[in-house]
């Protein structure tokens, strides 16, 4: 399936501030404890910064080369490991949940989205 990288670019351009924010992430890990999902699972891939950097962060870095499989691969991170409760907190002021949410919106705009008939987190495999 084809995705529209021009559309992705224009959606990324609308959130230029998020690019700057993500680039200042110090990977300090302070946001981890504010995420119930990380606290319950202890899974390093569920820290808020990991989820944002490996979804929207990747989109900013390699939007030209993205394909449908890249977006599908993000599903288990941005839907499977985040409920968009928006409780994550970064002392540097990075709005992490907005970044994850924008990654989800970009995925949806390209036909990749959560499907709750597949399971309670909207994806097939957790």
């Amino acid at each position, binding site marked *: 399936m084809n995705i529209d990288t021009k559309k992705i670019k224009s959606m990324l351009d*609308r959130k230029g501030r998020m690019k700057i924010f993500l680039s200042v992430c110090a990977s300090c890990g302070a946001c981890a404890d504010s995420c119930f999902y990380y606290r319950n699972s202890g899974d390093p891939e569920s820290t808020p910064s990991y989820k944002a950097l490996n979804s929207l962060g990747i989109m900013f870095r390699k939007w030209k080369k993205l394909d449908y499989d890249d977006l599908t691969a993000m599903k288990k991170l941005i839907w499977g490991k985040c409920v*968009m409760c928006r409780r994550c907190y970064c002392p540097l002021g990075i709005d992490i949940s*907005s970044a994850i*949410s924008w990654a*989800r*919106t970009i995925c*949806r*705009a390209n036909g990749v*989205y*959560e*499907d*709750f*008939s597949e*399971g*309670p987190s*909207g994806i097939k495999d957790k």
Partner: protein
Amino acid sequence: MVIARIKPIEEILGFISGKKSVLVVGCAGCTAVCLAGGQREVDSLIVDLKDNKGVIFDGYTMERQCEMEFVAELDHLIDGFQAVLSMACGAGVQFVAERFPGMPVFPALDTVFVGANREVGQYQENCRCCGDCQLAYTGGICPVALCAKGIYNGPCGGSRNGKCEVDEKTACAWCQIYERLKDQGRLDQIMNIKKPMKWKNQTQGTLVQRGYEKFQQD
């Protein structure tokens, strides 16, 4: 979560009759989870409406329509459309309508209740948001949503063999409450007569969580 179902297509067509361009807006919150108004349902509603020749449809699904920051994503999209069909619960529809007061915003769903997911596609109502939760005394079984009469001092005289007189296929909630409390040795919880309910939910609700009072706007 909030449970909703799609309205009959004829009713939706009636809302948008005469409109030349319609934006169908999904909600990735509750109505996506209950398979009524997420991205998948936006796509299929657009297919169903497309028989409507000469009308331009587009779709957009946001995280939640009950949060203004997400609703604001529509700001740059909405120009040029003559109507919006919202696939959120009633709260979401109203938030979209509030953000775009000049735009006719129509509900594509009927919001039916607050409930839980029994199975994929099967939902059960178990709370009516009464504002005075009784579950502490009733063994975790809601006497408002699950008892046909919503009584606080049950059972009524119609409870028979564990079934409700209103529908004999339905369990009597008060019978279940009794059995559960008995098993837990807590029957004293329902021995006192409860005062009449204040039915606070008859007026519009606003909730400010403790600690957030300073953020409340006048």
